[in-house]
């Protein structure tokens, strides 16, 4: 319940504050309204009285801001003390201080600090400060985590760092250390990849993977990829004739015959969640970097399609020879492997052509054997392949390119971050300029010029507005990250990933041939942005000139 006298207390406080921010020449009017409060009947009536009075004084304070000093008419006063125009610094200082304080208060919120770090990411690649999302370069935070994990002998944290480390040698070292500490993390060899490793090192890892998870076809794909790469580089046989290499064929056959195909991404997501929670890492770039992986050997996926095509061809040869049973087995192997690939990944479209071919051949064989139900079933599956592949393509496109909303939010985050930096620099320049000009650090001795005051005012208000925009734009992505960190729910991580990918580009640029270039579409934006700024400045000058040159009212004789 509100105390009866509370409205009157609020009324007094409100009017006192209004008097404080009001220009000097209106102080006695403010005191007049304040002192009349003692005679206003009723506490709520006193509050209404105070609101009206505070409004009048606030209006004068704003006018004093726009037209400070000699260009504003002094309100005549009965008291000689207030006859002279006082400096209009107080209201300006009050607004500037309030805006700066409110902007700084935003930094108390962890979400805002995170948002600000994200907004600074656009400069990382420009100044080569640290890792940028998706583009390997040294990352001090990851270094610190790896050192901490080595010190604590924390296998999971080592595994977390291993899959993210840009340097292949260091990555291999961390992965070995993690697996040594906890052999259950052998799957790490598959996720960390085999790029840049020596053939003997790849053989050792593949062998360990096969021992650890013998039913998984993934280790055979890595082995086949290594054989393909070695053969290509040694030019032992022409490129494109991999299917004639018995070792490669053996590994691919083993992969196609394997009862399962697990890319271990589920295990990795769970591990990421545990490590991020344990080390209280709230870097969204680190958390979302897992979204960039799909867990299959790059060339292995393409080679699967190659091998599947060769299986189909041999099946057709067998069919022509009348060996329908062997042909059926070949087609079935392709269909089964294609289904396994589509379960754990979004890569069916790599296999869509052989998979559709396998279903069609299986349907044709069933028709030949008079099994109409099976023929219809395979026919329906063949029809579904293209649709599934198209759906997956669209999903991948949206996953990597993001939605319009994430593009806009990333733009706002970058723009507001830039604006905060600009406003802070401008404010600092104004403060330094005033201090240098007045040779003093005492507030009372500081007499900023109208231009300095206007610039400081604009910078403070701009900083507050930019902070608010940054906070609001980033808030949904912070929620997505928190959902992942607290509950392990990674359903929003692809959206976060797309947002972060955009947020790291310097505003108005795109990544091309290893460097940032200004996008042609953004040139139009910059043109209109410059025009808008120039128009705003022209309008501001026109308003100032109007108030400076307008005809003064004459007092009656």
């Amino acid at each position, binding site marked *: 319940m509100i105390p009866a006298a509370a409205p009157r207390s609020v009324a007094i406080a409100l009017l006192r504050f209004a008097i404080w921010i009001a220009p000097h020449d*209106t102080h*006695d*009017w403010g*005191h*007049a*309204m*304040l*002192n*009349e409060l*003692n*005679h*206003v009947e009723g506490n709520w009536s006193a509050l*209404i*009285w*105070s*609101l*009206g*009075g505070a*409004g*009048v004084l606030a209006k004068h304070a704003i006018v004093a801001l726009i037209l400070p000093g000699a260009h504003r*008419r002094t*309100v*005549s*006063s*009965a*008291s000689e003390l207030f006859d002279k125009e006082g400096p209009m610094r107080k209201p300006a200082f009050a607004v500037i201080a309030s805006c700066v304080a409110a902007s700084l208060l935003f930094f108390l919120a962890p979400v805002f600090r995170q948002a600000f770090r994200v907004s600074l990411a656009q400069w990382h690649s420009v100044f080569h400060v640290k890792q940028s999302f998706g583009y390997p370069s040294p990352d001090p935070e990851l270094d610190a985590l790896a050192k901490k994990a080595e010190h604590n002998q924390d296998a999971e944290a080592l595994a977390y760092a291993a899959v993210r480390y840009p340097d292949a040698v260091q990555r291999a070292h961390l992965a070995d250390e993690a697996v040594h500490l906890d052999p259950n993390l052998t799957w790490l060899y598959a996720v960390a990849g085999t790029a840049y490793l020596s053939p003997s090192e790849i053989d050792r890892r593949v062998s360990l993977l096969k021992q650890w998870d013998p039913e998984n076809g993934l280790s055979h794909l890595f082995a086949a990829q290594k054989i393909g790469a070695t053969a290509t580089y040694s030019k032992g046989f022409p490129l494109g004739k991999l299917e004639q290499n018995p070792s490669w064929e053996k590994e691919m056959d083993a992969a196609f015959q394997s009862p399962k195909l697990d890319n271990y991404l589920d295990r990795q997501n769970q591990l990421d969640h545990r490590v991020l929670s344990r080390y209280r890492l709230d870097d969204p770039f680190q958390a979302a970097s897992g979204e960039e992986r799909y867990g299959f050997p790059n060339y292995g996926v393409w080679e699967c399609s190659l091998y599947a095509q060769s299986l189909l061809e041999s099946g057709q040869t067998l069919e022509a020879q009348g060996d329908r049973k062997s042909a059926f087995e070949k087609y079935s192997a392709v269909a089964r492997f294609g289904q396994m690939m589509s379960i754990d990944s979004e890569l069916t479209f790599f296999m869509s052509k052989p998979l559709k071919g396998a279903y069609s051949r299986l349907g044709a064989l069933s028709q030949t054997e008079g099994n109409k139900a099976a023929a219809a079933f395979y026919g329906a599956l063949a029809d579904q392949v293209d649709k599934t592949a198209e759906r997956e393509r669209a999903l991948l496109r949206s996953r990597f390119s993001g939605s319009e909303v994430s593009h806009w939010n990333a733009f706002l985050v970058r723009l507001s971050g830039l604006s905060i930096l600009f406003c802070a620099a401008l404010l600092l320049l104004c403060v330094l300029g005033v201090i240098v000009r007045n040779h003093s650090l005492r507030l009372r001795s500081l007499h900023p010029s109208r231009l300095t005051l206007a610039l400081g005012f604009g910078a403070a208000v701009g900083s507050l507005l930019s902070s608010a925009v940054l906070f609001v734009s980033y808030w949904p992505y912070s929620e997505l990250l928190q959902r992942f960190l607290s509950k392990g729910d990674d359903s929003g991580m692809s959206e976060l990933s797309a947002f972060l990918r955009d947020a790291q580009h310097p505003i108005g640029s795109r990544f091309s041939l290893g460097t940032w270039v200004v996008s042609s579409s953004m040139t139009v934006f910059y043109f209109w942005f410059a025009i808008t700024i120039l128009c705003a400045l022209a309008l501001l000058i026109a308003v100032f000139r109007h108030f400076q040159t307008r005809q003064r*009212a*004459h*007092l*009656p*004789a």
Partner: protein
Amino acid sequence: MKTPRLSPQTLRVLERFVERPTAWRYGYELSRETGLKSGTLYPILMRLAKYSLLETKWVTTEDGVPPRHTYRLTPNGVELVRSTFANSRVSARSALKVRRPAFSGGKA
């Protein structure tokens, strides 16, 4: 001579002053008599004072209570108010004279 814009609210305030031209009036008293809120009344008072139509004075009414700001029309103010109200009466009468035939409903 430039004079402040005489809005209906300003006229209402001036009417109160012109009743007792020599008396000092309080802000809250004027607010109650005119029915104007402080946010409307004080800008009017400030504007009248700016054009020297109103003089102001601080008075102490009782011990322990802060002094009150009081207002009274200056001679210039009294003259302006009288001429304004006189003109408005003439205008009103002439308006009535002009309109009378129309109100009579007679044929032109």
